[in-house]
């Protein structure tokens, strides 16, 4: 507590001092001068660490970086001696500002509390019951934009923030936020960043999965049919429309972030952008659309939820697949193990009562995807014998990333939690990639952020000292080349 306060005070002081040098009010940030951080240690995440180098920011992007880079003429120089620069944090999964925590706290705490009166674990994920296909529902639609939490998270280092719909099975489409936004449109970087898929170990959810994936597969097959093929009855008309309307026209709207990268083997290389992403009400900016394309001829009603899932199966979308325990993973394997789609696995807690993920390494490997989990150690069931799921996954060759939590208080202690993981054997670079590049890939934004490379957004965290030492101190956060004021 006192540590946090001290850190905070230091941060504020720092911010104040830097504020003298750097224009702070967004309105006045018309300073187009490049910024050059010199003599800094640069943790690129994607390549080698540059022990002493220069990083140049220009037009919101990283213009150059390296040991031999010299600051361009006219650049504002920030002396980075003793500083470490790393990419901004990417939170791929949170309920920030939505009410209700996405991430139950690590239940290792429960087993440490004492052994008596242990409660049976709560049902996982959405808890079943309400399992339904709402895959096209956009979580962004339930957000109230004027909340301090986004800015607060940004100031703790989260430069890319995803919001997650909640519920079992297919609760909807997740959103990607620009956490410095003040209005909904400013906030919304993407309103359909990923399809949320939430596993729960109960009949309704499992049944819904098998039935829905079956329908979605069928739809994919139908989409493959040549649009011309006239068929009897009225149904084909709709299908045909679907076929031509869908993949055909890239939205003129605005250049979205890059199309999802094809890191998943089964995914076909597809050029067309999912036009669905422009759907959703509530604004004309980034996420603004008129539902389902304006003025279509009356046609057989399409199930937008199914359309989203067909996109997913075709590899046009990515999913975040939440499976909270080893037991649930085996149930998933049984019900949908054969269904292939681009995915990142989210494990929202270490569930010792239904198996932490490190007990099903073989099955996890077979899923061929990255796993995001709580940045904590776990324990054996009903025991204080500590275990290190993240390390075990990493050692097994699985890409590991971490969940950053819903509120600034959680994020403020993130680096302490990472330190514990590192002290217990996880390589430091894995820990840091796990909060930057790995979640960036989960959101399909790794071409823009998540690592320090020329041409990427200048989303930076500047530390005095090393972020993974207790004395390392976050000094400033830069979002797309602008320093984030440390006071709202």
């Amino acid at each position: 507590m006192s540590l946090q306060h001290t850190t905070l005070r230091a941060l504020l002081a720092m911010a104040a001092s830097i504020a003298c040098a750097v224009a702070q009010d967004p309105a006045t940030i018309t300073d187009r001068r490049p910024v050059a951080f010199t003599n800094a240690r640069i943790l690129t995440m994607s390549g080698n660490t540059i022990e002493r180098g220069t990083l140049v920011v220009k037009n919101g992007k990283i213009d150059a970086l390296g040991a031999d880079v010299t600051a361009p003429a006219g650049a504002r120089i920030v002396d980075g001696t003793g500083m470490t620069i790393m990419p901004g944090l990417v939170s791929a999964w949170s309920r920030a500002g939505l009410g209700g925590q996405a991430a139950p706290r690590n239940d290792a705490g429960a087993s440490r509390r004492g052994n008596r009166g242990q409660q049976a674990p709560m049902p996982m994920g959405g808890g079943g019951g309400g399992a339904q296909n709402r895959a096209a529902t956009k979580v962004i639609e339930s957000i109230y934009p004027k909340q301090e939490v986004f800015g607060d998270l940004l100031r703790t280092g989260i430069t890319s923030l995803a919001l997650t719909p909640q519920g079992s099975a297919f609760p909807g489409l997740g959103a990607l936020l620009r956490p410095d936004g003040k209005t909904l449109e400013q906030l919304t970087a993407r309103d359909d960043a990923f399809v949320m898929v939430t596993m729960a170990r109960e009949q309704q959810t499992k049944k819904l999965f098998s039935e829905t994936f079956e329908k979605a597969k069928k739809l994919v097959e139908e989409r493959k049919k040549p649009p011309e093929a006239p068929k009897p009855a009225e149904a084909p008309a709709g299908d045909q429309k679907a076929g031509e309307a869908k993949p055909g026209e890239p939205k003129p709207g605005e250049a979205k972030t890059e199309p999802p990268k094809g890191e998943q083997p089964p995914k076909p290389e597809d050029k067309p952008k999912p036009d669905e992403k422009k759907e959703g009400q509530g604004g004309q900016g980034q996420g603004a659309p008129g539902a389902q394309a304006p003025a279509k001829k009356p046609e057989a009603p399409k199930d937008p939820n199914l359309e989203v899932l067909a996109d997913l199966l075709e590899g046009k979308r990515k999913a975040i697949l939440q499976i909270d325990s080893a037991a649930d993973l085996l149930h998933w394997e049984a019900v949908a193990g054969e269904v292939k789609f681009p995915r990142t696995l989210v494990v929202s807690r270490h569930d010792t009562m239904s198996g932490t993920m490190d007990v099903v390494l073989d099955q996890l490997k077979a899923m061929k995807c990255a796993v995001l989990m709580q940045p904590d150690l776990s324990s054996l069931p009903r025991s204080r014998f500590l275990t290190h799921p993240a390390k075990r996954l990493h050692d097994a060759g699985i890409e590991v990333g971490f969940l950053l939590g819903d509120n600034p208080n959680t994020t403020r202690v993130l680096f302490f939690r990472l330190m514990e993981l590192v002290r217990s054997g996880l390589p430091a670079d894995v820990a840091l990639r796990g909060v930057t590049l790995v979640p960036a890939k989960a959101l399909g934004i790794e071409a823009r952020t998540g690592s320090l490379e020329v041409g990427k957004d200048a989303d930076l965290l500047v530390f005095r000292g090393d972020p993974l030492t207790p004395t390392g101190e976050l000094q400033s956060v830069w979002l797309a080349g602008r320093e984030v004021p440390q006071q709202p």
Partner: protein
Amino acid sequence: MRIQAILALAVLATTLVDLPAQGRGRRGPRPGDPNAEAATPPVAAPAAPAETKPKHYLAIVGGDVYLGTGQRLTGASVLIADDKIEAVGHNLTLPEGTTVIDAKGKVVSPGFVAVIGAGMGAGRSAPFADAVNPFDPEIKQGLAAGITSFLAGSTGGGSAPSGSNAVIKLAYGDVKAMVVQEDSVVGMSVPLPLADREKFADTVKKAREYLAAIEEFPKKKAADANAKEPPMPGGADKVVAILRGKARLWVSLGGGGFNPFGGGRRGGGGARANDIEGIRQALELSKLLGQGIVLQKPTSAWLVPDEIAATGSMVVLSPRDRMPADPTDPDHTGSNLASAAILAAAGVPIAVTCPVGMFGGAGVGTGGILGQDLNTPQIDAAFAVRGGLDNRKALRTITLDSAKMIGADARIGSLEVGKDADVLILDGDPLHYSTFVETAVVNGKVVYEKGKETLYSHIDRHTDRQNAR
């Protein structure tokens, strides 16, 4: 201790679920199973016709093997091929590549079968196959107690056949192997009002007619392509399942609540159906069905062992349930510690279960009371011995005869060729209070080793030979 604590623990203990389930059979080794992959192809595998996958052999060698049938082989071996028992006996020839576990000086026994169980990964919502938790730490606790299978769910009750349950196997880490079969037990309770008895008789009649019609159907279909399959008579599905041999009828004889301060009675005083008349009424149902039923905790059964034996019925009981005789009622003769022995002598198969007590429970409780729940199934069998049952036969009450009660004896309950390889290696007499499970094998896989799990690894077996029985 006081009632708050009692209630709290009672709640913990009562986690039975009452929901339908759907069947899912066992399966062979999983693709990607490290054990299966590591197996080297046996050179002299006995009779492997066109097997594509080499079998994985595991042998437990040199132990005193209790078959579960009442027999014992000294210094014998059990050979397991994949998930089944391949051979049991002396001087077995082991195929090349067999993994050998030395059991010299140990006791080898079938995994214990609990006829009434809860928890242990069975899940709380139906269907069981969709909810099982193969990593529930209670599975390890159950295995440490020797349990490899148990009946989870509700065994029904009431005036018409009902219930929703599953035989759960403690196949740690294997979702698909955990449910052996679902709804193999159907329950009713007595006393039944006359109207309900007549209704049941009518249902049995309709069920028989239906089965006869089904049998006729192929012929009818051949004659008339438009013939429709006879419809299942309303409300008869459970009875049909019984008549088809897919389910066993359990008849509950009332049993009452246990008053903690009611003078140490257990098993429910005043449960009127528990007298001879109640048992006879249950046996009437057996006669209607033309097959044996399972009497659930029939306190007075020891008075009419031959009547029960004559119907081919079986009995689930806890030797420790106590119901004092009612001196004012000559029919109300109370419980008998010797019940198991008396019934067994008449040829009635017996399964024992834990007592109905404040802290007794159908699960591997964590309430701290030991010897009253499924943490020690051997203790319940030991109490049957206390009442006079032969020590060796008593093992059947928690193995083969238990498996019969839940209709799973074709697969589990004894170490016989072709059955599931659910085997325990024990460090002594199976029914001794100090005996621990050293190794538990389920479906041919080692799923519990005392030395490697936290539960009991720190305890050495009490080896006071002087005081051994």
